[in-house]
């Protein structure tokens, strides 16, 4: 047996310390879209539940939105940038592959020389990144980490394609985590993650650089396969569905959200479990949707300190990840 004497001591686990978000000012309504493509407000509300979305100005960079969200999360955690040592940005819409987002965002925020990398698991990205970061903290490899989901999907949209242009939006959300001082204060459960590469083509960027989605196939997949992932995350955390106070799934489509919540309730989740519906005014912001929904629900009082929150992300890959967290 080879023993490495230099491994850091493991910690009891990780917990959430703070959160923050950023959205562009520009609101695009369904009526705005109907002036460009053959659609209408009622049709969009019926199919996806969206009333409006935020779209970034051309000059606004993904890393700008990520910086704002990250800065707010650090402040909310009661920390200064210099106290963080790791930053992970979940994104699938950087304009180029090099440089990555994380190092630039850290530089803009003023985090000195952190470990910095991006995660691309599309709409599941934030939950993937949070799972990886929590394990880095638990292993002692990181002490305090900033995890951001940031997307500028508008760069990848064909505004004449009514099947995608009505769905997506731009934005960023972030959380800060650190090592829990003892086992009782661990606030991030084990991640339940996986992928379905046999459906890789169902959500993809075409040769013309625009996002394409096979809506019906993805809808069927999400409404049937995601509830079991969420339930596995609950089980891994040593809880039952009835323990969940707030359910924050990726904001893909309100009908998917409602279908998954219904399946959770059929397995014992409470009727008064609060379910995120941030998609209504944010659209589908891919990896940003879960942390955006968290921050917005806290702001409107539907998410409170100590709440047990079930997160689940799912989308391109296809990939999925979920975990239970405690609201700081």
């Amino acid at each position, binding site marked *: 047996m080879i023993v490495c004497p230099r491994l850091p001591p493991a910690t009891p686990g990780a917990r959430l310390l703070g959160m923050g978000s950023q959205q562009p000012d520009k609101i695009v309504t369904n009526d705005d879209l109907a002036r460009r493509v053959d659609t209408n407000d009622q049709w969009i509300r019926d199919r996806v539940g969206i009333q409006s979305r935020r779209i970034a100005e051309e000059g606004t960079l993904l890393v700008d939105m990520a910086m704002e969200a990250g800065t707010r999360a650090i402040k909310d955690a009661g920390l200064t940038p210099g106290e963080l040592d790791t930053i992970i940005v979940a994104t699938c819409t950087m304009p180029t592959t090099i440089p990555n987002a994380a190092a630039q965002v850290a530089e803009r925020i003023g985090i000195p020389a952190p470990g910095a990398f991006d995660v691309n698991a599309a709409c599941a990205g934030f939950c993937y990144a949070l799972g990886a970061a929590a394990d880095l903290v638990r292993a002692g490899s990181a002490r305090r980490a900033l995890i951001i989901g940031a997307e500028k999907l508008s760069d990848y949209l064909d505004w004449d394609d009514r099947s995608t242009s009505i769905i997506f939006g731009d934005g960023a959300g972030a959380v800060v985590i650190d090592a829990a001082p003892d086992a009782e204060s661990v606030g991030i459960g084990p991640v339940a993650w996986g992928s379905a590469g046999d459906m890789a083509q169902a959500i993809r960027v075409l040769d013309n650089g625009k996002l394409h989605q096979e*809506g019906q196939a993805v809808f*069927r997949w999400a*409404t049937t396969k995601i509830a079991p992932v969420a339930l596995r995350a609950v089980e891994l955390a040593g809880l039952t569905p009835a323990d969940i106070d707030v359910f924050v799934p990726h904001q893909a489509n309100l009908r998917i959200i409602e279908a998954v919540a219904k399946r959770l309730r059929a397995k014992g989740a409470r009727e008064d479990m609060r379910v995120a519906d941030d998609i209504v005014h944010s659209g589908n912001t891919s990896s940003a949707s879960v942390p955006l929904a968290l921050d917005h629900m806290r702001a409107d009082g539907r998410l409170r300190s100590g709440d047990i929150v079930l997160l689940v992300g799912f989308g391109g890959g296809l990939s999925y990840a979920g975990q239970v967290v405690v609201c700081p």
Partner: protein
Amino acid sequence: MADNTEILTDLALIVEEVAGIDHADVTAEKSFVDDLDIDSLSMVEIAVQAEDKFGVKIPDDQLAELKTVRDAVDYIAKNQ
């Protein structure tokens, strides 16, 4: 094994739950799209629930062929 009448009864209840259409209105000759005004995503939800209820597989390409309630009942009866 349910017979066609039982399948119709159960299918009508699924349609009512998914699309909010009174089950009494879900009769064999009705077209899902033209008569019952059911959209494609609701059809997927109906198919998923029918799969659970009747133990059949209704893939998306097959689903597109099921124009009327009778088409769906016949398909389920044949593939149970």
